[in-house]
């Protein structure tokens, strides 16, 4: 078969490797010879070209921030303030995972049990059944800790996120609607925190529940109906705890998840504001 179009690409390099001329050391020559042998057979050049074309086609490139691209003045240490919303989402995810594991063992009961004191943490000998997860299942203590601190971080992140949004005036056009959605999420987060605070059914839980119940009862017209719906009547007891459990484990997380998806979808469409 006649040779067409001159020497094939890489021929010179291959010849150098074969004849031993040029500046290459022995080891390099050997490597080159091996590479040329493989290249002749497996056409790595084409793979590389296909890969480059593919990367260009899907526009995959290292992120360049808006301020870098347009050479705007930027205060880089403001960037962490722009991840507070993501921090809230992340802590919601961890709270959900640890919460699912906790829900496998949690019993919404106001009964009290006698158990040995838990190390240095408590000198009490009796606990409400709700908190005995800590002592009775492996890593129960760590599970409650993870859930507790996820919740704390989530509320803190949501509050600081609100402050950041307010102070950089990110609620202006085109983001007004998302600001209202965000307020709804803030209220839902506080609701999740409140219902979760009542679940251990400790002294603080009970009296925080009393505050909420009195607030509901003080409301005119719908007050007693709301108290019956949310707190199970005008006195706190087993029904309160059951309702708080349902609210905390099912109703509020599902609503929060839905609203959160909406919130993030709008951010996806509109983009995140930049520090200026």
């Amino acid at each position, binding site marked *: 078969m006649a040779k067409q179009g001159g020497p094939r690409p890489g021929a010179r390099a291959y010849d150098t490797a074969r004849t031993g001329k040029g500046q290459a050391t022995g080891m390099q020559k050997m490597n080159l010879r091996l590479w040329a042998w493989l290249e002749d057979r497996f056409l790595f050049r084409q793979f590389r070209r296909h890969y480059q074309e593919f990367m260009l086609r899907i526009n995959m490139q290292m992120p360049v921030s808006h301020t870098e691209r347009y050479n705007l003045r930027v205060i880089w240490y403001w960037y962490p303030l722009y991840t507070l919303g993501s921090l809230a989402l992340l802590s919601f995810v961890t709270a959900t995972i640890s919460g699912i594991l906790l829900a496998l063992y949690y019993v919404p009961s106001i009964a009290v049990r006698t158990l040995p004191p838990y190390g240095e943490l408590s000198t009490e000998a009796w606990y409400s059944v709700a908190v005995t997860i800590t002592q009775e299942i492996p890593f129960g203590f760590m599970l409650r*800790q993870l859930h507790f601190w996820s919740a704390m971080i989530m509320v803190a992140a949501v509050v600081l996120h609100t402050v950041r949004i307010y102070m950089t005036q990110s609620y202006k056009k085109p983001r007004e609607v998302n600001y209202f959605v965000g307020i709804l999420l803030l209220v839902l987060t506080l609701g999740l*925190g*409140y219902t979760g605070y009542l679940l251990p059914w400790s002294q603080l839980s009970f009296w925080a529940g009393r505050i909420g119940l009195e607030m509901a009862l003080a409301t005119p017209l719908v007050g007693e109906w709301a108290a019956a719906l949310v707190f199970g009547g005008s006195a706190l007891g087993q029904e309160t705890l059951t309702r708080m459990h349902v609210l905390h484990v099912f109703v509020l997380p599902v609503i929060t998840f839905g609203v959160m998806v909406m919130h993030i979808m709008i951010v996806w469409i509109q*983009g995140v504001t930049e520090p200026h």
Partner: protein
Amino acid sequence: MATTKELIQAYMDEVDRLEEEARAKKRFRAVEGFPYWPHQFMRDSILVLVFLAALGYISAFIPYYLETPANPSGQPLIILPDWYLLWSYGLLKIAVDVTIFGTVIMEGKLLGVLLNGVVVGFMVIVPFIARGAARRPVEAPAMAGYGVFGMLLGITLSIYSVNNVFYQQWGILAQDYYVQAGLNEIFYILQTDLLSILSLVVPILGAFVTYYFLKWRQNITTGQTGYENKLSASYYKIR
């Protein structure tokens, strides 16, 4: 007669055309957002690692105590919601029966509940009262003052929610000259002891301090009027 669908189509075409024109002219236009994918996502991927490490560390080494079980008959000295709802409890405590010339027109409990709604209302009206292109606090001192007022009010109300502890520590905070002078017979809406007055005055003072500080910053930065528009034009518009 065009259908709605056709009208919308025509509108969208026109918007596209105008945007293309603006781009072609290379005139200044408003800054777009920072894309979520992949830019913000890459930013967040760093956050994931930091967050998981920090959460594991905190959970393992900062335990919270195991509480005593609920006892409906024995109210403890301090009853509290969690820290992020202390402001709400403070509002309930600071509200008293609304009295005009000895006539009660609203119960204190109801006022406390309504004030909680007012706080949410204050947040909702923000986009309606803040207009213009300003983004930085220094460009809009009034809005910054409003925000500082809200934040400080949250803190002072949280402090007020444990007022009995403060009264025990510093008796002067419980002094109530308003009631001693009998003024509560005339008009009474919120608590008037020194601590409650401070918890309202401090946020207002903070708002004014913020406002005048930012005004001062504006003046020493430029020393001329029309500063806001110039800042907006140079910072928020790109080619």
